[in-house]
């Protein structure tokens, strides 16, 4: 990594905060495991955003204090959570009706790869993995009104995660609308990836060099 990238690359928390800042009041939002889960912490308590968890919670709240854990109240990542005032419980078919019926305004997921046509690969770590865990990823990627991805811009060994065509098994076709990486914010439009923001000190050309598909500005 160049020094500029090293110095100014967004942290996981910064990526989550950026996503949170872009979520308006009143949206129904499902947050995937990993960085997406952190997003909830950055939505100000004064802004009512309704978090959905696919195991049957609408209006999920933050993690409880250690001495106030309700053992019956977990989220899709099996973490103990709380329910906000105004929240409700539902069974799995009703919960996924919200997702699959297009009622979730936004889903935020992690991913291994996103292609310039919006294809997403986020469930199987290799084409040889014959028992990967899909969970609700395919339902969410297809069903939510908007799909945003949060991920590192490249793999640890520097291979791009934004690509012309996904190499990993697909989760959904042409589903991603926006990507938050540690280096940039990009939208996926008809013509491919459009850069909306880059971290300080990194040029468009430097970002392009770390990306496996053509970027536009």
């Amino acid at each position: 990594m160049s020094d500029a990238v090293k110095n100014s690359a967004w942290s996981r928390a910064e990526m989550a905060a950026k996503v949170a800042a872009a979520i308006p009041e009143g949206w129904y939002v499902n947050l995937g495991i990993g960085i997406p889960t952190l997003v909830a912490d950055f939505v100000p308590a004064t802004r009512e955003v309704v978090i959905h968890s696919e195991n049957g919670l609408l209006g999920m709240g933050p993690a409880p204090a250690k001495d106030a854990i309700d053992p019956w109240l977990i989220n899709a990542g099996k973490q103990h959570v709380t329910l906000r005032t105004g929240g409700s419980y539902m069974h799995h078919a009703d919960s996924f009706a919200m997702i699959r019926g297009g009622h979730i305004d936004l889903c935020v997921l992690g991913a291994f790869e996103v292609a310039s046509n919006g294809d997403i690969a986020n469930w199987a770590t290799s084409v040889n993995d014959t028992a990967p865990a899909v969970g609700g990823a395919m339902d969410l990627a297809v069903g939510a009104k908007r799909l945003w991805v949060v991920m590192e811009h490249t793999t640890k060994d520097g291979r791009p995660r934004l690509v012309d065509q996904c190499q990993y098994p697909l989760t959904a076709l042409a589903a991603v609308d926006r990507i938050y990486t540690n280096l940039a914010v990009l939208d996926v439009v008809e013509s491919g990836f459009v850069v909306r923001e880059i971290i300080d000190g990194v040029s468009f050309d430097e970002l392009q060099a770390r990306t496996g598909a053509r970027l536009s500005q």
Partner: protein
Amino acid sequence: MIDKFVTNMADAMSGIADGATVLVGGFGQVGQPNALIEALIEHGAKDLTVVANNAGTGRAGLARLMELGRVRRIVCSFPRSTGSVVFEELYAAGKIELEIVPQGTLAERMRAAGAGVRAFYTPTAVGTKLAEGKEVREIGGTNCVLETALHGDVALVECWTADRWGNLVFRSSGRNFNPVMAMAGKLTIVQTQHVAELGELDPEVIVTPGIFVNRVIHVPYGDPPL
């Protein structure tokens, strides 16, 4: 702060376009969103497709909307019932289109719309007039008809209590089609008898979570007629 309450019917009806498909809750006189239907009459939208279990009775409410020539087409399970005089007249005169759907298929088609199911196979109506022209396919030894999801541009819903997030509970047989239509409507408008503070409704007993609701108006109109 999320607040789905509107305080007047003009706001409640805002944006309902000519040509819209309007789902209307209620079964018999119970759970009917009468005030919303009156407001829709006032609002003026025309060329409507109405989805409801019945085709209206008497000359008020849905029947009035039809009598004013604002309904091009009705989708229902029970068009001809006691007092469905307006429908009968319009239908005899060729002034209204009718799609009859078995009541369970009607509910399931709207539930499918709300749940992202695009179409489904059901054995109901196989071999009858109501399956004419529809794809029939054998699944696991049973002949089934292919039925498609039935979306509403608008759903008009009546409930017992609502809060500002649009969480709803219903009363007794007033529940009927209302929660299903709330799911299936792109714009779901609710009239509620009672208003609860947020948090007053137990999260375990909310029947329609607010995600399915766009607007709520407080109309404490009382009991259905006996």
